């Protein structure tokens, strides 16, 4: 073990002590040094003439190029492009599964699924231009499902439907830069084509094509996934839960839901809370059934059902090591092969369920949307039946914290004005008055190459102290929840202005917005804040920053690109830019993006630097908006009232 502090999360620290020399992501990260060339993006392995390792100069003093002559800039851009295509594919293929299930449900071919939020269906129908008048809910749902799926194979060359949800100004920027996405599959395929050997060999052009592909996710697949999930499973509203491994119960059957999709896990929640199944668990000697989430499947069932997050991505092996997890049900993304090895020491059944993701050594039970309830029953039963097989030393760290989750953008609007006066006005007012200095989205993953949860906690504490509202998604959100920061009582840690707002609304200064596809909710909130008025004309005018301080996945890179393209400054921490071998790419993503999109994509090595940069950006935006100083109160006479919109 090195000197590096592995985690600041007490449950993780205790579990790592318990597992001793068992192989975990933490130990393997220490054993496996990252490849220098790969980590800088200067290794090209797109053809059989290489792989070529670039960087540095040749003996003759020339910049090294690949065998084909590709410069380090082309290579770094290509590597980023392929990562972005993969990241976008992950989110948006998730969105596709959701759309397919949605359509099947609309057609009545997926028993157990239906429409829970009709109002949102009508809103979404509007986005797709689906006529609603004189149609039944089912007819509208079918049309919406078809339109959503249609976004994947769209060939016309016109913008994807959701692009029009952005501000006018932003849409114009996208049009001018030709980065509006035309169809999801097309953007991914084209990007893969462009990055084949001997095709696109202009770093800037490759980068902008990557942006377009990311846009197809952010303003396409991801956003649709969020919307359709909300319609099917209910739009989240605040609920109470608890976070960390301490939620597991020794005497219960414990089932962990891990991965990213709510399609199956929603049904598992239905079945596991069914009295019949609880009786069955009791018949097998358990006291009940406890569900816990990990990663974004965990966030999905947290947001809508209140299932407690047992941990974030780095805790998946450790959950198994408690010895009380009777089944870990996994679907897609961030499910690491290491869990199968870990499960061998204990009794945990790892059950893969998605056609896209099988793991050698795990049991596979295929999830079919038309047979979801039966699949869920089979899986829950398998977990219960495994209760009797527990072996190995049981240890549940006594750490869990209460939390509030469930902030959809719809609810945020509601909570600011109730059913009759719902609007973002109070939030805008709070920012303009300086009670809230700005908003920061802390999102993304954990990475064993940085101290687990450390940056998340640090940034939350330091930002709210300075009157900056924090919204969170993904594993970052779980990290803050485990620290107890997602309780309204946390307002005591906030600065006086933010605290006053929290008191007025009854919220914590740190809001859980959901899973990583729900970063689309952040885009929607920012757009609505702009539309509400008083804070500029575009997202790039807002005192708002996105931070992924412990990122690891390709999806994070995709999110970063669509956020920057939307006008939000993005800062990544921990592991540095995977294209830093190219000075040109570093310039294009900072100065270049600033010029094009009014926002930058930066990597900063320490949490302190991230904090400082964030604060500077927010203050600069406030100054540009002219809200850095208090304005005199405007009193309205009759003529001025006539100017007000009614």
């Amino acid at each position: 073990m090195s000197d590096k502090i592995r985690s600041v999360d007490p449950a993780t620290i205790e579990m790592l002590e318990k597992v001793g020399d068992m192989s975990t992501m933490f130990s393997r990260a220490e054993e496996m040094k990252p490849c220098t060339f790969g980590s800088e993006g200067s290794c090209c392995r797109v053809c059989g003439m290489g792989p070529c390792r670039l960087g540095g100069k040749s003996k003759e003093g020339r910049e090294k190029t690949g065998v084909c002559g590709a410069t380090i800039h082309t290579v770094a851009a290509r590597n980023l492009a392929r990562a972005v295509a993969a990241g976008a594919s992950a989110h948006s293929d998730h969105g596709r599964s959701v759309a397919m299930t949605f359509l099947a449900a609309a057609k009545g071919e997926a028993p157990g699924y239906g429409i829970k939020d009709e109002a949102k269906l009508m809103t979404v129908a509007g986005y797709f231009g689906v006529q609603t008048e004189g149609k039944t809910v089912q007819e509208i749902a079918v049309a919406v499902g078809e339109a959503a799926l249609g976004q994947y194979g769209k060939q016309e060359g016109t913008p994807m439907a959701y692009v029009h949800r952005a501000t006018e100004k932003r849409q114009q920027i996208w049009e001018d830069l030709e980065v509006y996405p035309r169809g999801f599959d097309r953007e991914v395929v084209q990007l893969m084509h462009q990055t084949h050997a001997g095709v696109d060999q202009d770093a800037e052009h490759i980068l902008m094509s990557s942006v377009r592909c990311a846009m197809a996710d952010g303003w396409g697949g991801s956003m649709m996934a969020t919307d359709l999930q909300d319609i099917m499973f209910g739009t989240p509203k605040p609920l109470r839960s608890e976070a960390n491994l301490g939620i597991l119960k020794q005497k219960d059957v414990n089932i962990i839901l891990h991965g990213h999709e709510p399609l199956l896990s929603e049904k598992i929640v239905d079945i596991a809370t069914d009295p019949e199944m609880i009786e069955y668990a009791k018949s097998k000697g358990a006291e009940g059934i406890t569900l816990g989430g990990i990663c974004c499947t965990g966030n999905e069932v947290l947001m809508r059902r209140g299932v407690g997050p047992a941990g974030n991505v780095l805790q998946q092996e450790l959950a198994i090591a408690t010895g009380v997890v009777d089944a870990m049900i996994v679907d897609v993304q961030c499910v690491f092969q290491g869990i199968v090895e870990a499960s061998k020491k204990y009794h945990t059944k790892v059950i893969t369920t998605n056609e896209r993701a099988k793991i050698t050594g795990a049991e596979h039970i295929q999830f079919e949307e038309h047979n979801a309830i039966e699949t869920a029953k089979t899986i829950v039963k398998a977990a219960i039946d495994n209760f009797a097989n527990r072996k190995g030393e049981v240890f549940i760290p006594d750490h869990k914290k209460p939390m509030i989750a469930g902030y959809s953008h719809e609810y945020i609007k509601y909570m600011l004005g109730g059913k009759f006066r719902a609007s973002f006005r109070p939030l805008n007012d709070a920012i303009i008055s300086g009670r809230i200095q700005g908003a920061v989205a802390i999102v993304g993953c954990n990475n064993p190459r940085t101290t687990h949860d450390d940056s998340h906690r640090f940034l939350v504490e330091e930002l709210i102290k300075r009157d900056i509202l924090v919204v969170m998604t993904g594993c970052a959100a779980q990290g803050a929840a485990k620290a107890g920061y997602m309780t309204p009582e946390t307002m005591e840690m906030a600065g006086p202005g933010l605290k006053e707002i929290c008191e007025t609304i009854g919220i914590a200064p740190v809001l859980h917005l959901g899973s990583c596809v729900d970063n689309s909710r952040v885009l929607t909130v920012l757009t609505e804040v702009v539309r509400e008025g008083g804070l500029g004309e575009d997202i790039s005018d807002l005192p708002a920053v996105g931070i992924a301080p412990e990122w690891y996945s390709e999806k994070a890179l995709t999110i970063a690109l669509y956020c920057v393209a939307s006008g939000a400054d993005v800062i990544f921490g921990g592991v540095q830019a995977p294209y830093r071998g190219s000075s040109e790419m570093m310039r294009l993503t900072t100065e270049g993006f600033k010029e094009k999109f009014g926002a930058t994509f930066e990597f900063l090595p320490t949490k302190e630097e991230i904090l400082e940069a964030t604060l500077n950006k927010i203050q600069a935006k406030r100054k540009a908006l002219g809200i850095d100083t208090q304005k005199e109160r405007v009193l309205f006479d009759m003529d001025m009232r006539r100017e007000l919109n009614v």
Partner: protein
Amino acid sequence: MSKIIATLAIRGAHETVNLAEQKIKEAVDAKGPNEAVAFPNTGYFLPVIYGLTGEKIEKVSDMERVLKIAKDLLPEEPSQDLWLPYLGNTLDAGIATLFGAEMIMALRYIGIGEPPVNDLYLGAADDVIMRARGVEFVDGSAPGFAAVVGAAPTTEQAVALARELQQKSLYTFMAGSTNGICMADQLAEAGVELGWDTRLVPFDPHVYGQIYSIGFATRAAMSFGGVQPGDYERILRYNKNRVFAFVVALGEVDPIKYAAAAGAINYGFPTIADTDIPQILPTGVCTYEHVVSNVPVENIIQKSIEVRGLKIKIDKIPIPVAYGAAFEGERIRKDDLFAEFGGSKSEAFELLRMRDMDEVEDNKIELVGIDLKDMQEKKAYPLAILVDVAGRKMQKDFEPILERQIHHLINGAEGVMHVSQRDVVWMRVGKKAVDKGFKLTDIGKILHTKIMNEFPAIVDKVQVTLITDNDKVHELIEVARKEYHERDERVGGLTDDNVDTFYSCTLCQSFAPTHVCIITPQRLGLCGAYNWLDGKASYEINPTGPNQPILKGETLDAENGEWSGINEFLSGASNGAVPRLYAYSMMQNPMTSCGCFEAIVAHLPLMDEETGMIYSGFMIVNRDYAGGTPFGMGFSTMAGLVGGGMQNPGMAGIGKYFLGSPKFLSADGGFARVVWMPSELKEQLRGILEAQAERSGDPDLLDKIADETNAMTMDEVLAFIKPKNHPVLSMDMLG
């Protein structure tokens, strides 16, 4: 902190909705589910419920539906720890409280609970009051209202509070008590004149009576803003941005008061309290703070105005009595009378004349004859008020406009009553005013200050001469009469044909955003307040203001009253929604209407069952008339069909005096088509209507027009006019 407010407001909402449920049960048991329930004389049912949900409550059983809506809105109280967000919930609880309160108060009108009206308390405002008073909110003469809940610590403080509100021209709506005493009780005890006329309105001793304030505001949005019932977003936004109201909470605030305040916050009406309750200072639902507390009673109105974001201009007039629009409605009765002038008891007149600059000495106020202190109590004296004005942009045409201001300008002084104008003027000065040192020269000060302030663009100098000398008045009254006559001749000579410019009027666009009036010499604005000369003067006074000159352009159709310039202007101003206007027709391309019209003309097709003939009659109903009409609905309901800035053939809002114009719907057949109007309107306008009848060639026409005493259905109208050979019987059918 806000959580305490949320907790108590939500508790109060539950109490209110539970009480409403109990009262509805009582009503069902006592009266049956089909018992009709309504506030008196309104076309808006229970207006808050109707406005926010579109639900029409007509009978007791209708309340069950709204009770369910209210219950669905009721949230749980926030928990001690790990609470869920409560602001949205609290605001919803506020709405539930309003629904509950409105049903509770409506049921009192059918005998469930306390009687809603007594010697002191007025109960719900009917539509006649709402329209008459609502117009003051439209034109800005009432900048807003204070909903006062509870009682001031002392009676003296209550009186001071009321006077301050009056001086600022704000309406005071009182409902809700502290320890069983309401501010209205305190004012009554001190002998302050209460009622709509003095803008001190006692609704009810219970805080639920504030539902009448909210109902007033809700109706204003529907009536003047053209907002459709059920469009809650616009109703509330309209109130936030137009109706500058606020809640003044005096004394202890209990859960029900908190709940009602939460309801008011939805409307953008903040609460300002004199007790030490928690505050909600962040802004956004209201324009500024939501709850501000611990404000001493002495400062509470000033603070309230600031919190609501209201700018009120008060002219400091150096006179010894209070001054403000709220005093205009004051009556001086015999007991309070010190001296009076005119009103057929003595000779009196007032005359405003344009003079050359060097003929007027600014701020010279002269009294010829004795002043009040030398007069005997309760006696009548002669009086002349001569106002001489000069200004580089003053015109002879503006004389009558400025002269007409004298009435309300003098009336604004506390303890002075002024009625009518010219040589039929009647003025009374009360004892209290004289006790405070009021002199006749103070009238000069009022006129000088106000005319200079309100008409700076056309008036540079004002000089006032007051005469109480009998001989002088007698001599000058003849001069004045000659002036009046010349003036009338001059104005009477103005026709649509002999001017090349009309005026637009968007004065009420603050309240009715889509409507534009076209004012011609022969068709005054539909609010009745602005004629062509007013438009002209207003443009001079404020060239970028609500009245803009429009060149008529080419006459496209003289009979219908269509001009190219007017069409172009309207088309642009309405974004193409109103491409053509026939100024003289109601049946084709008619003028649009806001909500401020004085009267409605409606096409009343009368079918003769025997012959199968259909006659196209017109009926008129004026705003002050509270009863039904042969159209099958009263003014309020009809107003809902007319307003909203849309062209609506077959109905039109008009100024009453348009009935006397030769151009009154002349393209449709004119006044000869009128078959029904309320008797009071006929009497009020008898002089000009007789001239109109004469002009139409049927001098007895007025007697052939039915009214509410003889015809309340179309059949009855026909039965009334047929034997009288009404001219409509020989006219073509329309449309």
